[in-house]
């Protein structure tokens, strides 16, 4: 599902980062762990095609990103990859519902209203669909962030430190939520974290 080989990335200051090869088969999840500042987030953006590698290749769901044009990568990312960020990012001028609709609107199929409502219900956001995103509580924002990462049923969900802001109880909740939703969407989870609490929940891991 995810395969990288010989990935290297050069930062603006000339420092080069070499990443270990990763291979993830369908239906499996993966943890990428390492101390902060080691380049975990960079790896995530490389895998999402948002940063160009100096060397090496990324293949997602059997597609070599190097072989695609920028436009094709954008389209591919919009349809096949879901991103969940450490810090929540929303379109603040839109309501919760419109944020979800906007995420769906990049898909070629007609916007799936049912999917939106089911997901909102499972994530406990049904009563807040017409609220502004800034009116949501921290926990609700977290769940909306997750919803935005998987509303379009991506093949691969890339999550960046999804639990770093959470207490132990919520940490477990979020991990279970991610696993359940990945199961429903038949997606592979790639979670980048330095949170030791997450470790026990996943078998596959790569250390940077």
């Amino acid at each position, binding site marked *: 599902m995810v395969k990288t080989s010989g990935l290297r990335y050069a930062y603006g200051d000339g420092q080069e980062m070499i990443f270990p090869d990763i291979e993830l088969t369908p239906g499996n999840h993966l943890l990428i762990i390492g101390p902060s500042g080691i380049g975990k*987030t*960079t790896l995530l*953006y490389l895998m*999402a095609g*948002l*940063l160009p590698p100096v060397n090496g290749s990324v293949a997602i769901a059997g597609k070599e990103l190097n072989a695609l044009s*920028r*436009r094709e990568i*954008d*389209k*591919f*990312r*919009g*349809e096949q990859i879901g*991103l969940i*960020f450490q*810090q929540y*990012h*929303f*379109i*603040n*001028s*839109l309501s919760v519902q*419109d944020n979800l*609709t*906007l*995420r769906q*609107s*990049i898909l070629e199929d007609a*916007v799936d209203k049912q999917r939106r409502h089911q997901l909102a219900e499972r994530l406990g956001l049904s009563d807040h669909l017409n609220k502004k995103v800034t009116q949501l509580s921290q926990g609700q924002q977290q769940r909306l962030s997750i919803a935005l990462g998987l509303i379009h049923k991506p093949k691969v969900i890339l999550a960046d430190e999804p639990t770093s802001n959470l207490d132990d109880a919520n940490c477990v909740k979020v991990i279970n939520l991610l696993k359940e939703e990945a199961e429903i969407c038949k997606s592979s989870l790639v979670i980048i974290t330095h949170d030791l609490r997450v470790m026990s929940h996943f078998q596959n891991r790569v250390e940077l």
Partner: protein
Amino acid sequence: MNLGYLAYRNMVSKPLNLLLSLLLLSLSVSLVTFVLQLNKQLSGQLNKNIAPFDMVVGAKGSPLQLVLSSVLHIDVPTGNIKQKDVVMLHNHPFVEKTVPVSYGDNYKGYRLLGTELEYLSSYNAELKEGRLYQKSFEVVAGNGVATKLGLALGDTFTSSHGLVDGGEGHDDKPYEVVGILKPTGSVVDQLLISNLESVWEAHDHGDGEHSESEEEHHDEDGHEHEEHGHDHEGHEHDDHNHDKEHKHEEHNEDLEITSLLVKFKSPLGMVQLPRFINENTAVQAALPGFEIQRLMGLLGSGAKTINGIALAILLVSGLSIFISLLKTIRERRQELALLRTYGFQTRQLLGLTLLEGLFLAFIGFVIGWLLGRLGIWILSGYLSATYGYTLQLNGPEMIELSLMVIILILAIFAAFMASLSIFKLNVAKTLSNE
């Protein structure tokens, strides 16, 4: 959901920014459209009003005043002249027709004009109802006056002295409305029109406010006989004048008119007659076309100044749209980066900003256009109350649509300049650094 909706939500999510940009833009648009409309409509109306006549002959004074008072009926007359002073024009080979006008009274602020029926036909005025006047103290009312004052056939009224409401009344001489005209779109709409004799007779019983020459005339006759003599004279005219106007002119050379409107048969008249009259007679000749052109020239420089100011405001408003979009883009860098992770392409983000700029410009233009028309409407109320002129509320004109296109292009340019940083947007960095 499409980007248009997002652009709209983005725009209204910053109401103060929006207000400032809209205010500046609509202010400049309203100024430009207001001045354009005013200029166009005023010159259109003025030209329509002066069209039937080439020259006006009246008492010495300012030629512009003579034209304004005797042709456009928006100023006081320069004085009166005697019929005999202009008799040479009646059968002049260069002259097609002459129409004498005499006035000095009003009814509720609307001028009573004593003239010949030829005056009405010169403006192609047709009756809506009733008939034309046949004898003294019968009037036909212009459409505007009739509507404003609610005049109907058979109504009677007494005039007041002077050209504005509130002068001394001529209570003993009531006028009767015998006809109401169709709208002509010219000054006739704002007049009450009777024969010349009505004006003369109304002032026979006058109160000492006759013009000087009239008083001289009375002095010769002797004060004691003043009223008798005039009354008698007036009746004589009545008898004579209904069928033969020329006779009337010949018989009454000492009677006064305010001015004589002249239409030339040949362009030579335009060249020779005004100069001849101004150099050799006690009266003056003015050319309405020339005077109005001069007047519009004066107004035109005022209009140019206002247009210059409007242009400056327009540039400032373009700048304000640019700054507001630039600020917006800076503030929304993370949202734009987020949209990139959703799969939106750079050019779509560019389109988002362009749309926002275009929305702003379009709404600003529409508000400004409406404000401009509102200004015309308010001014029209004032003009019609003071001068009897009304302005039309026209739909959008070609030149205004061109203005809109210019503003939209300006907005696209501003939005594009503001969006340049989108091309360099580093998604990873922007999303990682809070």
